[in-house]
């Protein structure tokens, strides 16, 4: 064992956590190396001094002060718990009132006889007949393709844009057929 290895292992050596064979090697090194023996003695002596420092004890009023603070703390916790409980109860009551109101309103609505369904007024106009007007009897290929393919956005928009025209056309066509 060299001095470097001794220093590396010294922590475990002092704490007595080395395995048996390592311990013997360290002891043998101390017996051979004066410098490491001095280092070991220096550390052990310093530790002995520190470990033997007289312990300090809490002052006489330590317990009394702590007890007072703990009582305060206990009171604070109680107040906090009560506040939480109060808030919880208030929230529960509020939620109950809202729920009861909602249920009451719903029941009141369903209790009366069903009223007539009022539809929005519809105004339909037939454009003046135009001699040069040629109705489109089939949908534009793009629209047909889009509808069958199920594409939604643009084709739907285009389709919706042309719907009134198409309805008008079909109306006119229908009129022509009946004549």
């Amino acid at each position: 064992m060299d001095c470097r290895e001794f220093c590396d292992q010294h922590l475990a050596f002092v704490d007595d956590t080395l395995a048996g064979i390592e311990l013997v090697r360290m002891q043998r090194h101390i017996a051979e190396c004066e410098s490491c023996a001095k280092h070991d003695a220096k550390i052990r002596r310093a530790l002995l001094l520190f470990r033997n420092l007289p312990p300090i004890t809490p002052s006489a009023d330590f317990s009394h002060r702590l007890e007072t603070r703990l009582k305060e703390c206990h009171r604070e916790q109680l107040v906090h718990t009560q506040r939480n409980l109060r808030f919880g109860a208030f929230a529960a009551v509020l939620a109950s009132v809202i729920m009861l109101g909602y249920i009451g309103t719903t029941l009141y609505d369903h209790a009366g006889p069903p009223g007539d369904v009022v539809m929005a007024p519809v105004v339909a106009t037939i454009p003046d007949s135009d001699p040069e007007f040629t109705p489109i009897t089939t949908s534009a290929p793009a629209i047909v393709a889009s509808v069958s393919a199920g594409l939604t956005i643009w084709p739907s928009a285009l389709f919706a844009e042309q719907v009134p025209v198409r309805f008008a056309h079909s109306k006119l066509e229908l009129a022509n057929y009946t004549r």
Partner: protein
Amino acid sequence: MADIVRKHVVSVEGQTVRERLQAMDDSAVVTAFLGGEERAFSELVTRYQTRLLNFVYRTIGDREKAEDLVQEVFIRVYRHLHRFDRSKKFSTWVYTIASNLAKNELRNRSRNPLVLFQTVQKNFQDEDRPLQFEDTTSRPDDMYRKRHLREIVEESVAKLPEHHRNVFVLRELEGKSYEEIAEITQCNLGTVKSRLNRARNSFAEIIAPYVD
């Protein structure tokens, strides 16, 4: 007469509970406290107050402040004991709280030198008080030597860097294992060993001229 008997029964019951608590390990005492036994907390205080006080005092070097910090430790334990993971050691948890508070105190001091100055001044004035731990039957020169040595040791510990001192005190004074120290200081095992080794070497170097 009935009152006297009732008082006697209560005191006997109280004594029994206290004795039972004393016989329990920390984990059982904590369980008792969480189960509503308020006296269990007093038992925890009794067990840890002196140990924590010594640990904090050796870390920060100011006795009064150390007492305040230990009180703060117990207040925090009281408030948060229901959150304590009972699969772990109670002592490790308590020392972690104390260690963090001591670290904060040292950090605050380094930010505010006035506090440090006041502490030093206060300790200086405290020199006039008689020491509690001296054997009054000793000869005056022995007493002086012991007192002087104690001061030197305390000064030498104070000279260690904070993170070294923390590990050093936990190991040498509190006898904590490396694993416990790692948990308390939130470092890995290698760091703990390295810091402890350096702290021991530095402490021995600092104190050597005084004891040789």
